[in-house]
């Protein structure tokens, strides 16, 4: 089918939804939103799927501003991959919203939400399809402001206002950086459309390119949650309504990644001096900082937000590795790293959306987000618990779910640093790899905590005791996402080729044959590989189960062209089969062995206590406190003070422990910047004496300065 038609239908339908949304009552709004947004998402899925799988591209113009510019669009496989994921996130979130938004009528206007929700969807699609600077920036700004309004949806809460404003400030600053970057590029290219920017980027000097590269990285990094410009992210994610948090994490975070890929990786290809390493290091530092704060956080949504920073860091680490490999001409490795990066992005969108929906459901039913106050809700919300568990296992990168596959690929591509020459870059790779490994370990801790402290044990508050299972319309989308997590976990060999088509233009080479070689399809006489090579693989057992197993199942990483290929292989597809067989075997054996035995349930052993009180069980804070102690150099609590109220000299009535931690980014980056601003402002203020003569002197001095400067330029 022609995608241009779909493209038009999508916009017309969305515009219709926005207009209709304006006139609907709050009571009908949630269902309407679920209905229209789902159709929009399905349309987008169709559109981007067509493009992604068939390779159809689309170019065109929206509008021509005669004197200024052309607003144009272009759909290639990269943008359709992003659109596909966006739609995949929007579809379940929209259905979920039908149930979730029920908590708002009467307090907040749902019409606003509905309109903004659709507007955001449209603006995201516009960003992803923009083919020129003006369209891109305009839709970016629409997206930023809509996001701000949605984060601040519960507008009467102090905390939300603060986090919304912080978000707006930072994203506008990022916007400014991106705009300046575009101006630098446009100056060199003399045009505003992306194609000519790409073609003419070499004309600029190295310094200009570097400056614009960094400006773009920072500008897009704001949305992607890159350290050090992510201070807004945990606050905003926590303030936003949960269904919108899912969108923020699953769709708009990707826009930052998209920007970095589209502009930094594609348009600025000619910058070749260590830019990849910058992205690599920034990514791995973000990953570590993100997960450290996620582990120690007890607010579920904040924890997920910090974890988004971590995942964004992992994505960018892969991207950075890809850039380094591309700069040094290792196109195959670059392709693998890009695939790892984008695969992880896909996965992150899926599981993080799932987790945010789960967190939203828990918040809805227990009215608390603090994991310290939850506990024991698995029995009350079994399906939510199950889906949350799937999300947690996925994000903790445990097989057979999807996080494992992408993290495996990311690690493998980092390990390929041996192919590089430069020692400092190798060191950077090694350090990033180490940081990523630490991150992966902490991620497991974090999500063991998240699941066990919320769902297992005893309820630690009355709120948690009151929890009930979510309605079907909220469980369904979570189940859908959980299923996608499983599918993308066990069928990587079918997803990698799709992602490869999107990344191939970036890495200048398709790596499907290197990553998921079609051993089963190929006869030994294939021309792609030498006979020895294939027989090597066969010796390694690649053809095991050739006759019984359907299709591809092996992800390998090899350097097919070299004499001694370094081979790493893994197969979640087969692992899951083996896993199911093993569990089945154990289950059957256990059943046979205990067939004749009576099962008695004895009391839980708690040391002979009369009653194990809820406050005697581990809390999320308690569980993660060892991490806090070990990494105290990073957390560096500014205040830890025990205030003791006492009855008399030695009797304590209460110990109030205050702990104030300022996020490392705030401490090392935001605060100094603010301080510098304040100092400058104070200095400037001291110029204002109120005397007219002095002001006249300022005028003269500035005139002279301008003249002098003008003389030199």
């Amino acid at each position: 089918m022609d995608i241009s038609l779909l493209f038009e239908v999508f916009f017309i339908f969305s515009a219709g939804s926005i207009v209709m949304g304006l006139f609907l009552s709050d009571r009908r709004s949630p269902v309407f939103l679920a209905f229209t947004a789902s159709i929009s998402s399905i349309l987008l899925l169709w559109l981007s799927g067509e493009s992604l799988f068939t390779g159809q591209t689309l170019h065109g113009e929206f509008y021509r501003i005669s004197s200024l510019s052309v607003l144009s669009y272009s759909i290639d496989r990269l943008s359709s991959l992003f659109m596909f994921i966006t739609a995949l996130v929007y579809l379940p979130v929209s259905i979920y919203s039908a149930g979730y938004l029920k908590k708002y009528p009467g307090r907040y206007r749902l019409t606003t939400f509905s309109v903004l929700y659709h507007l955001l969807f449209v603006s995201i699609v516009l960003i992803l399809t923009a083919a020129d600077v003006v369209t891109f920036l305009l839709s970016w700004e629409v997206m930023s402001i809509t996001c701000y309004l949605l984060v601040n949806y519960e507008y009467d809460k102090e905390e939300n206002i603060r986090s919304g404003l912080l978000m707006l400030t930072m994203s506008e600053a990022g916007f400014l950086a991106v705009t300046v970057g575009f101006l630098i590029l446009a100056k060199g290219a003399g045009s505003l459309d992306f194609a000519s920017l790409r073609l003419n980027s070499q004309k600029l000097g190295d310094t200009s390119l570097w400056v614009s590269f960094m400006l773009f990285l920072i500008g897009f990094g704001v949305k992607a949650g890159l350290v050090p410009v992510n201070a807004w992210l945990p606050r905003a994610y926590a303030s936003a309504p949960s269904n919108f948090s899912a969108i923020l994490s699953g769709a708009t975070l990707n826009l930052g990644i998209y920007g970095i890929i589209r502009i930094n990786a594609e348009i600025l290809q000619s910058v070749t001096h260590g830019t990849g390493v910058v992205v690599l290091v920034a990514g791995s530092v973000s990953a570590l900082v993100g997960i450290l704060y996620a582990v120690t956080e007890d607010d579920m949504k904040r924890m997920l937000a910090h974890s988004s920073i971590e995942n964004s860091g992992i994505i960018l680490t892969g991207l950075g590795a890809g850039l380094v490999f591309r700069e040094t001409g290792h196109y195959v490795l670059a392709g693998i790293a890009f695939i790892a990066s984008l695969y992880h992005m896909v996965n992150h969108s899926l599981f993080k959306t799932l987790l945010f929906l789960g967190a939203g459901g828990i918040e809805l039913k227990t009215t608390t987000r603090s994991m310290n106050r939850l506990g024991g809700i698995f029995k009350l919300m079994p399906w939510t618990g199950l889906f949350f568990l799937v999300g947690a296992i996925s994000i903790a990168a445990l097989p057979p779910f999807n996080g494992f596959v992408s993290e495996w690929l990311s690690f493998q591509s980092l390990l390929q640093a041996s192919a590089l020459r430069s020692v400092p870059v190798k060191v950077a790779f090694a350090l990033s790899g180490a940081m990523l490994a630490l991150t992966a370990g902490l991620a497991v801790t974090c999500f063991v905590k998240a699941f066990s402290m919320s769902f297992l044990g005893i309820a630690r508050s009355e709120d948690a005791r009151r929890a009930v299972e979510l309605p079907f319309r909220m469980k369904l989308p979570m189940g859908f996402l959980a299923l996608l997590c499983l599918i993308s976990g066990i069928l990587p060999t079918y997803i990698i080729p799709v992602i490869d088509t999107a990344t191939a233009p970036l890495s200048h080479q398709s790596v499907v044959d290197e990553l998921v070689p079609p051993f089963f399809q190929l006869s030994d006489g294939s021309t792609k590989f030498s006979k020895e090579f294939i027989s090597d693989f066969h010796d390694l057992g690649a053809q095991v189960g050739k006759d019984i197993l359907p299709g591809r199942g092996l992800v390998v990483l090899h350097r097919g062209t070299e004499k001694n290929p370094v081979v790493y292989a893994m197969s979640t597809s087969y692992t899951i089969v083996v896993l199911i067989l093993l569990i089945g075997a154990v289950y059957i054996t256990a059943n046979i062995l205990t067939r004749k035995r009576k099962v008695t349930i004895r009391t839980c052993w708690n040391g002979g206590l009369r009653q194990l009180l809820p406050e005697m069980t581990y809390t999320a804070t308690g569980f993660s406190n060892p991490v806090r102690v070990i990494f105290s150099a990073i957390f560096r609590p500014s205040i830890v003070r025990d205030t003791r109220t006492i009855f008399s000299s030695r009797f304590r009535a209460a110990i109030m422990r205050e702990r104030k931690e300022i996020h490392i980014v705030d401490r090392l980056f935001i605060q100094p910047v603010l301080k510098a601003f304040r100092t400058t402002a104070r200095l400037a203020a001291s110029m204002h004496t109120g005397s007219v003569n002095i002001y006249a002197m300022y005028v003269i001095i500035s005139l002279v300065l301008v003249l002098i400067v003008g003389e030199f330029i």
Partner: protein
Amino acid sequence: MVVETEIYKKLHDLSERIRHLLTNSVTVSIEPENLLCSIECNVDALPVVCKQLVSRIGLSFATMIVEESNEEWLIQYVFYSSRIHILVNVMVRQEIDNPSFPSMSSIVHALDWQEREAEDLFGIVFEGHPVLGDFVLHEEWPEGVNPMRRTFRPEMPYPHKETRPEWQPRRILQEPGAFMMPIGPIFSGISESAHFLLETVGEDVVRSIPRFFYKYRGVEKIAEGKHPMEVVLLAERFAGTSAFAHSLAFCHAVESIAGVEVPERAVQIRILFAEFERFRHHISCIEAICNSTGLAVAASQAAILEEEALRLSCEFAGHRYLFGLNIPGGLSKDLSKEDCTGLLKRTDNILKRLDRLYKMLQYSSSFLDRLEEVGIICTEDAIDYGLVGPVARASGVCNDIRKALPYKGYENVEFSVPCETEGDGYARLRVFFQEAFQSVMIMSQTIERLSDEPIYIPIKDYPEGSAIGWVEAPAGAAFHYVRIDSRGRVIRYRLTTPSFTNWHGFHLAAEGFAFQDFPIILATFGLSIAESDR
């Protein structure tokens, strides 16, 4: 006679000073033969008296004795002076239907647990005490029933609250995410029953709340109405690991009531076994410390030495834990000269190996890492909590009842009181070792000058009266108060044990340290819960 006049002079000076310090509301009397200075005062004057005694005269708290008679309550606050070696007894009376006394625990913090215990067992209200209730008697015990009251019949199990009793521990740590780590009452491998709640936010223990008296056997109550010959069995069996010390303290009290002078030989052999028990007890503590740090070989070595000491006890005293040896009036078994030298020789052998173990431990850095700077109690805290025994001596409170209130026989022995100032686990370990060495030294001194007298003087009948017997038990100072009625039966038996005193201060050591240090701190205290719970 010279000694006695000296004591008389000291007592007289002290009483003059007390009279001078306090107003006329008190009556001061002295009993030189019992090294005792008694102060009678009314309830209102009590805070002033206690404050002056502790802060101006510098007395240490020994024990608090509550007695109920037909018409009045009598509380005796017993203090002692380690400088001039005398006891000071503050007596306060209240009518029987007004069981209310001012709380002294803010002045003498060591009284905290004593008052809580008395509140539970007698139903006395201590006005101003911030935390009363839920101490000796747990949640299933009905309110308002106080087992130590005279009217309470102890013979049969008492009916409990019918409904499922709820128990809510008092939490004081206020921080989001703070929780309590419950330990016990049945925990780890072979441990005594006690319950510890560690308030924490993870990793560090912010506050530790011990909950004791799971092992409360009502020893003080069931002793009432029994003949001293029976009570001595209780005295040695309520805390089996320091049986000899406690039966000795009881015998001291009873003998003092009966006015019996125990023969010199009995006194000396009592010292011999008391020190031998200390020796064995400290080896056992060392074993527990090695065990808690996971140093298996050292723990095994100490266990070997402990077993050898136990076998020695059995061989020479007839019982592995020295039960049945002490009886009022002397000892039930004599030692021949060969026995004495044999015992000493073989104890020396154990001592040598213990010394080797000590040296090896001092050079095991991984072992010391777990002990050093862990479970610290500073000197000031130790004084305020009135800590006793090796725990106090490791915290710089160089207080030993054998020196402070020299009881029978110890006046003539030369020994030093090992003292450390760090107050950490390692300091306590060193004190244990050095005290074990000192004990063997005392044993050899005693055996050298063993006299040829009978070992036992029978006590025909017990006159009415009361007395305090004290002893430096292996874990610290123990005070046994006995009152005998006209029938020659014990009607009040009050036990203040070193474990009870020191567990009170245990939370000081446990707070501020990590979870994994907790068992080690527990072991370095070397305390017995049986001795505390009674």
